[in-house]
């Protein structure tokens, strides 16, 4: 596949992520922060997010498995996850966190358990999407091309 084609595919794929709600404008902000002096910024930040999220989700799951659930703690974790996911533009994850917090407030264990599943689901989904995106970027770079600038007018 030649570079131009790869670039177009990349653009289409990125657009679809936005259209489907996986990513939001905040992700664009991250892309804008990337430049020659920080060529891997997005990948770095997102990788950091993945790393942090794994820990967070583990803590969350364990907290909900306790005989007596400490909802404050759970809520704190969810709040944190909401903050980090929104910071990188993982919209669906963020929305799942928002819903999650409601259950925490109600101290609804069952609801929370369902929510954590939902959050995890969304997280793994966006994770795989982003990993695909980054793989495409690497291919483009390897072929000597550059990542196009996104112009989202939708």
């Amino acid at each position, binding site marked *: 596949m030649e570079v131009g084609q790869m670039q177009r595919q990349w653009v289409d794929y990125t657009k679809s992520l*936005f259209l489907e*709600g996986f990513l*939001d*404008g*905040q992700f*664009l*902000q*991250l892309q*804008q*922060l990337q430049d020659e002096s*920080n060529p891997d*910024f997005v990948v*770095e*930040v997102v990788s*950091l*997010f993945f790393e*942090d999220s794994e820990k967070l989700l583990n803590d969350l799951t364990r907290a909900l498995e306790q005989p007596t659930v400490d909802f404050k703690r759970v809520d*704190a974790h969810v*709040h*944190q996850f*909401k*903050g*980090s996911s*929104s*910071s*990188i*533009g993982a*919209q669906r994850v963020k*929305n799942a966190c928002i819903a999650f917090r409601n259950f925490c407030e109600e101290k609804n264990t069952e609801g929370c358990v369902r929510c954590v599943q939902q959050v995890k689901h969304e997280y793994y989904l966006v994770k795989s999407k982003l990993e695909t995106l980054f793989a495409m970027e690497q291919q483009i770079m390897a072929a000597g091309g550059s990542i196009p600038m996104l112009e*989202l007018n*939708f």
Partner: protein
Amino acid sequence: MHLSNGMGSMSTASSSGAWKSGDVVTDQFPAGLRVLVVDDDPTCLMILERMLRTCLYEVTKCNRAEIALSLLRENKNGFDIVISDVHMPDMDGFKLLEHVGLEMDLPVIMMSADDGKSVVMKGVTHGACDYLIKPVRIEALKNIWQHVVRKKKNEWKDVEQSGSVEEGDRQQKPSEDADYSSSANEGTWKNSKRRKDEEEETDERDDSSTLKKPRVVWSVELHQQFVGAVNQLGIDKAVPKKILELMNVPGLTRENVASHLQKYRLYLRRLSGVSQHPNNLSNSFMSPQEASFGAMSSLSGLDLQTLAVTGQLPAQSLATLQAAGLGRSTTKSGVPMPLVDQRNLFSFENPKSRFAEGQHHLSSSKPMNLLHGIPTTMEAKQLANLHQSAQSLGAVNMQVNAHGVQNSSLLMPVAQSQPRGQILNETSGNHVPRLSSSMGHPIMSNGMSSGVSGRNGMVDSGRGGGYNPMQQNSSMLNYPLNNSSQLPCNSFTLGSTPVMSSLTSKGAFPEDVNSDVKISSGFMPSYDMFNELQQHKSNDWDLQNVGLTFDPSQHTNSMHNSLDPSVLVHQGFSSSQRGGQSRSPTTVGKALFSMGEGNHLGNVQNTGQHLNGFVVDNTVRIKAESAPDATSQTSFFHEQYGQDDLMSALLKQQQDGIGPAENEFDFDGYSLDNIPV
């Protein structure tokens, strides 16, 4: 200077050190602004750092509050501004905020993914100069330098105005300089300023003594002397006269000490865990410097002051009110202060009728905790009074608050806010209806009045839950509405453009406006808040809000003052309108992105200017500075204006009033004598 941060910050080499040494702006400004960002979330921290670097700021990142504090302590003048997350595992962000305000007196911006109004309110009451909602956009960070400039500007103003008191402080300079590395460092900046203004001050002093009372700048050294004297006398036996003698600071008056003592008592009370107590006035005493003070106290103080200033509310009555209020909630020491502040602040006139009413109420009702968390005990009546007074004061307050807030070194802030709260509380309850009528007038709105009221009532909740009582009262609603609405506005303005919301509210503005406004996520919170407020509040507010039209010109500093309840209402509407819009970034975000934070801020400012009321001191201030940008936003305002000729008329009035008020924020010595400490 560059701080040596153990956090591995990547401070860039391109810092404009000159910027800090007393110059307001260098050619590179705001490049090189030294920012300390604290957040336990590594993802956010990394993004923020990158964003700040892109803004050409010198960034130090830190993931623990304790480390951040030690960094700040080691490099007293090593940072210009601090950005901190609210929820952190090792220390609450608000605690860090308090410490920074107290010890270093740096502007602090809070941020969180939490946009709940109570949290934002907390930020306001604790003295944060802004509140950003995550995810933070780079546009929001581009303008943070305004907080630094504003703070410095206010401090300089204080320095210039302090006249003889300044001299006393200046005498301490040599010792302060010698202790550069000690905690006195914090005062060195002031010293340099003072030195710079020495000549001016000398000239001014002669004039100022006749025109305005000099304001005392409570530097760290001075405060330590004060604390030493108090401890020596015993906190119970510490009376201003004796403290003054022990301190032996030339140029310091008994009134200065009295007002500072009042604040200090509140502070102690708050520290001792009474913060949750509605009567806890000490909440307001955040620190000698103003940070929180300015914000809080200025608001409450302004109310009283505005009343007092215009002369309509005799100092005595104010004193009585304050005393009553203060006595009720805490020791009465606080009372004197507010009066003084008010007097000085006021340069603008409030409708006599309004004050008269306010006075009436004030005397009748108990003073609400004006300051930071004091108002909690507000009663319905008080609230009503507040509301009313807030309204009338609104104009006044705005200015006063703006002024007060900005002056970190204001002693009075605590005191000031208190009286105001009281007044507000008192008047608001009774005069709800009046508010509507006076609303037209309120420019006070700049948020002061409402902000103040909000402060009292709201602040408390933020601080010590003082707000709660207010809300319970229906009459309070009116006011709290303002407060809450205002406050949220303020905070929102920071993050979002609250102004926008106001526009949309009342239906004066088309839905379009809202959409425009919606740019930042910050809006969301405000909107939500307003919605709630809207629901709670009575219709009276709505009327008032509608009428609010602020003069942009008015605000410079007084932006925050504009409390206009109507503005709040607007916001409420806008929020409801926005509700549909919700946060989902896909819809709003996309549009917003184009707007960028810059617009957002610009909008906020514009709105802030107009609305004034929203941003309670701190927040407003921030916004106000960035006013120029929001051209698009301004259009909204115009609409508002068009709709409310009254408002513009009022604004004009306030403008006049505000101007002077801003310049004179001298609390000391005024009516304090009347108030028993």
